[in-house]
């Protein structure tokens, strides 16, 4: 492999400026949505006292999970010493930081009192997984930032492997923390399972890599820089393995629930659409499993698509769509299914919808807030590759492949 040459993009084209303007409009719309929700109160959203986390949280958790996954490419290079990924490691850190920023932006702007963020930064209840996560998120910015600095600064380069290992361990902790937000909730049938943490880690591998590949393809197409098949096909097969691994975890999650009688009600709701769960079972089977997993896996491993960039890009889009569907079924579906406050009893009357499935539907403001977070992430990436030299000048096979033979 030749010497790595990173080069900032010019960022003067109409397309680039148009992209930033479009993304900026989404961010403005998100801020407007936030103002609308905060001014009127959350009753104008689809959220209520049963589904307390809605569409903004689906977007936010997706971005936070994808953030740690986007760091994979750097980790494979630094921790596992795979040289072919080395040129992409700085870009990987940038995408990771940008996704986390977008996700946190949504979370904070959805708070009932976002003006009190300083309280959350100064009062810590160390038994709260949320409090841990605040430390993990802030720490991620610091550690990944240092990691990127060490990789790019010639005088610090010798320490970059150690920073990479620290970032790898930290990102595993971060996604463990995100999964445990749900995994440690004893009260709700859909959660309360330790495997939420490893499942979120494997989800992060898949969603983060899908997002990273899209950024890579777009950046190289947009700048006209050479991008060889060797690196792209490596990432393609890695994505396929991760997508299959996510399916495996989903299978184990449901098979565990199906074994326990107390969870049969929830599984009938989620898998068969019984007891008012048809929306969620449709999203599960068609969104998450078929369109979001099986079809993209077929697009990755199918015949005749080995070097097709468009097919790969489409597969990445579908995996991201499937990831959103998965988080929708976990976050919204898990809350919509009623709490089992009185096991063995039917609820005949309640003013608070006890025992009833919640019919959540996301408001436009919630969706705009979520899209604004995604737009913010992409803005940071676009600005990052313009201001800093994160993007290799060439990833042609002759440059990127350590085993390339001319």
């Amino acid at each position, binding site marked *: 492999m030749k010497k790595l040459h990173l080069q900032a993009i010019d960022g003067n084209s109409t397309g680039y400026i148009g992209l930033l303007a479009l993304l900026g409009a989404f961010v403005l719309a998100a801020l407007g949505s936030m103002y609308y929700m905060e001014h009127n109160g959350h009753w104008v959203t689809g959220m209520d006292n049963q589904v307390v986390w809605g569409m903004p949280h689906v977007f936010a958790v997706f971005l936070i999970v994808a953030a740690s996954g986007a760091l994979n490419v750097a980790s494979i290079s630094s921790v596992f010493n795979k040289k072919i990924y080395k040129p992409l490691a700085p870009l990987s850190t940038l995408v990771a930081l940008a996704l986390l920023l977008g996700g946190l932006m949504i979370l904070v702007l959805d708070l009932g009192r976002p003006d*009190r963020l300083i309280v959350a930064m100064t009062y810590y209840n160390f038994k709260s997984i949320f409090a841990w996560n605040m430390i993990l998120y802030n720490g991620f910015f610091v550690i990944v930032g240092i990691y990127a600095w060490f990789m790019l600064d010639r005088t610090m380069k010798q320490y970059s492997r150690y920073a990479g290992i620290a970032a790898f361990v930290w990102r595993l902790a971060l996604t463990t923390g995100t999964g445990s937000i749900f995994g440690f909730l004893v009260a709700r049938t859909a959660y309360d399972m330790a495997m939420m943490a490893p499942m979120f880690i494997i989800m992060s591998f898949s969603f983060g890599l899908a997002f990273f590949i899209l950024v890579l393809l777009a950046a190289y197409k947009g700048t006209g820089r050479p991008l060889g098949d060797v690196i792209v096909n490596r990432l393609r097969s890695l994505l396929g393995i991760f997508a299959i691994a996510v399916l495996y975890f989903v299978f184990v999650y449901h098979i565990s629930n199906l074994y326990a009688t107390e969870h049969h009600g929830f599984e009938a709701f989620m898998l068969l659409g019984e007891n008012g769960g048809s929306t969620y079972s449709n999203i599960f089977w068609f969104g998450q499993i078929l369109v979001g997993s099986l079809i993209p896996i077929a697009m990755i491993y199918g015949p005749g698509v080995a070097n097709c960039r468009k097919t790969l890009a489409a597969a990445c889009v579908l995996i991201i769509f499937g990831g959103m569907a998965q988080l929708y079924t976990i976050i919204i579906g898990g809350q919509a299914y009623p709490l089992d406050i*009185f096991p063995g*009893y039917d609820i005949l009357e309640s003013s608070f919808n006890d025992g009833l499935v919640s019919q959540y539907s996301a408001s436009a403001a919630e969706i705009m807030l979520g899209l604004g977070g995604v737009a913010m992430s992409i803005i940071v990436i676009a600005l990052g590759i313009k201001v800093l030299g994160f993007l290799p000048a060439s990833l042609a096979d002759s440059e990127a492949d350590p085993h390339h033979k001319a």
Partner: protein
Amino acid sequence: MNKSTMNNESVNIERRSFVGKSATAAAALTIAPGVFLNQVHAKPAGEAVTDAKRWGMLIDTAKCASGCTSCVTACHEENGIESHNRPLTDQQWIRKIKIKDKLTDHVVSLPMMCQHCEKPPCVDVCPTGASFKRVDGIVLVDRHICIGCRYCMMACPYKARSFAHEAVDNKVDYQPRGKGTVESCTMCVHRVDEGGTPACVEACSEAEHGAMIFGDLKDPSSEISKQLVEHGGQQIRADLGLNTGVRYRGI
């Protein structure tokens, strides 16, 4: 007035007095045990709460009348909670639920509110410590440091917490509340600290149901402790091991 008339008068006065005292005693024993309990526990203002007491409630579902919502009305009046006719987003600190045993068809009516757990999941998950438990067992939300993340609502097994989805117009001095924060039953801590009884318990007594008893679970001579020793009382979702301060009879 002759001597025999005087004697009759004197007998009548004594009889009236006896009947009056007996009626008072009978009323005290039957309709308002909770009220009498609270004459002894007033805490001087400024004195710290101690763990010498653990406040709790016992709800006898056999006495809880189906269709009666006196406790709900009293709670919401006491704490300034107003409905916007949007039950899914309105605050509900206490609610009435009617349940039926799936096997026996036995129907039970009961009030449901914060169960004031010894190990409250809402307190565990709260990132800022806004959800907290006083040493006397009352679980509260400090609405000055609540950031409105709603994680406590995700964690509560009893759906006992509400988010203030709209501006709070009707504010009472002892109950700071505001849009964007989470609320739940305070066990009328403002009354309890002054030696009073929660509004729901008082209303239940006034409605002559007497289904709710409030008192100190650590005081063996309290009515609630005596009732629990004699007749027992269940926790809702006892399997979670939260050791609730609110106990029920008849489920």
